[in-house]
């Protein structure tokens, strides 16, 4: 009975700490965890889509948590999970089916509600060792947490693994157990991982959440973020193309004709077509 109360009390405190730590690391520090000035630290704070942009690399670091010494349950260093997610959108996709008995072609639609455009999870240990599946799902850790409850009986539920395949092929979804690097910093040792987003990741503000687990429970969590934005030239071209299509087309033609005449002038040759 006493043990059950102790577990319940511990769970309550951990839950309370997890809730309050969203606003800072103060409670975590009071529980004996290492105080840090800024946790998680995401560097750089943003990336700009310029002419030569081919994706962005962000370094996410969090204070290393060696944990209490000894061999009692829950002792030892905390396991870490880093979750990066883009803004949620309703994703309208086409289902590919066999047509005419030979070709794979779009035949039917499916809508996935509130799916992040990009989603990256890095964990220091296999997810099953972090916490129970339902705990991870409630925290938004892992692909299963992206399933909408309403999807389970619908086509979206059936095609969810295909969504993951599609997004993984574009590197917009990534889930991996990675060796976090240990780095020395002014505020103490930090665990570091690199999150690489492909050029297809849309311009948006991305949410970065870091969790520390010990004994199957969250002992600390923090939140940060970064922004991917379009550079001036890129934004100008995209805006022109999307909002002033006719003008954009005329400019594209004029420049192409000028380039063609220049090429003809420089090389002085006649090319067949």
């Amino acid at each position, binding site marked *: 009975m006493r043990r059950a109360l102790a577990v319940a009390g511990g769970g309550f405190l951990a839950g309370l700490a997890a809730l309050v730590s969203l606003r800072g690391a103060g409670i975590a520090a009071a529980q004996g965890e290492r105080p840090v000035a800024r946790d998680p630290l995401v560097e750089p704070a943003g990336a700009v*889509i*310029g*002419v*030569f*942009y*081919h*994706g962005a690399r962000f370094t996410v670091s969090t204070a290393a948590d060696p944990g209490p010494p000894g061999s009692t349950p829950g002792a030892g260093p905390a396991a870490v999970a880093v979750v990066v997610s883009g803004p949620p959108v309703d994703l*309208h*996709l*086409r*289902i*590919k*089916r066999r047509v005419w008995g*030979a*070709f*794979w*072609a*779009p035949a039917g*639609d*499916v809508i996935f509600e509130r799916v992040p455009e990009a989603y990256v999870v890095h964990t220091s240990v296999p997810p099953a060792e972090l916490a129970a599946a339902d705990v991870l799902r409630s925290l938004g850790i892992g692909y299963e947490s992206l399933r909408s409850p309403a999807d389970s009986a619908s086509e979206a539920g059936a*095609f969810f693994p*295909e*969504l993951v*395949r*599609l997004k993984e*092929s574009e590197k917009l979804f990534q889930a991996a157990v990675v060796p976090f690097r240990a780095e020395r910093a002014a505020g103490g040792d930090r665990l570091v991982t690199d999150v690489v987003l*492909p*050029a*297809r990741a*849309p311009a948006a503000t991305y949410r970065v959440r870091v969790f520390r687990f010990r004994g199957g429970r969250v002992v600390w969590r923090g939140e940060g973020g970064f922004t991917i934005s*379009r550079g001036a030239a*890129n934004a100008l*071209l*995209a805006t022109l*193309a*999307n909002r002033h*299509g*006719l003008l*954009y*087309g*005329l*400019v*594209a*033609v004029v*420049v*192409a*004709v000028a*380039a*063609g*005449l220049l*090429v*003809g002038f420089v*090389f*002085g*040759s*006649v*090319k*067949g*077509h």
Partner: protein
Amino acid sequence: MLHIYLPVAERGANLLTLLGLGGVVGLLSGLFGVGGGFLLTPLLLMIGIPPAVAAASDSNQIVAAASSGTFAHARSGNVDFKMGLLLLLGGLVGGAVGVRVIKLLIATGQAGFAIRLTYVVMLGLIGSYMFVDSVRALRTARVPVARAAREAPRRASAWARLVQALPWQVDFERSAVRISVVLPLALGALVGVLSAVMGVGGGFIMVPVMVYLLRMPMHVVVGTSLFQILFTSVNVTVLQAAMNRTVDFLLALVLLVGSTLGAQVGALASRRLKADQLKILMAGIILATMVAMVLGLVLRPAALLSYEGGH
């Protein structure tokens, strides 16, 4: 590795790869005297450019190539403007129809599939024709001249009777032919549709048809074809940009640089190689591209989902 971000395709691409693709197509253009647009779009699809963007941007790139060619041919008096205007009229109508077809296909999510399928059919026809024609040419070189001369008029007669039966016969002085205006209008419309759907100039259809069916002299054929292609490509580029938002100008510009350089190398190389061997080589490249596209259509895709609009 130098990368470039394509603002309309909304993805990065290796700059050297794009320059290389443009260069390869330009090389073929210089070697074989075709634009290579029919090869460029499938190659762009293979490196992950969305089909609708690949086709529209290819049209934009063709504007540049065709403008330099048209200018040079017009200066040499090799453009039949009367024939070109009729082809153009058909091309404008066909282009408008093609762009609407693409818009409809994008809306139904079938653009990628339709563009790929059209390419498979066209590349299959062209590659097979070129291969057979090259083999026949190699054999004809060994056939006595008298026998070839006996066969030629017999092949032409049936077509000639059909052409003569069409209404609205007009003299085209520059091309030294008298044909119905229906022919260039219909041919222009066909090329216009293909230009929009496939992102090609259409020279690979136009040139043989003008030579074999319209009986125009070769030097006028190339200039007139380029004249028509220039305006059809301009029309398709503007319509694609205005209606479908699929022209990636940066992509077109990079491809243009690559193809320009490649074309110069190809023109130099073509002087040192034998024509029929080159044609067989070209046919092999076209058929290999077609096979790759067929495999992409019949093999189970990595994911059974795709984005709407063929993107």
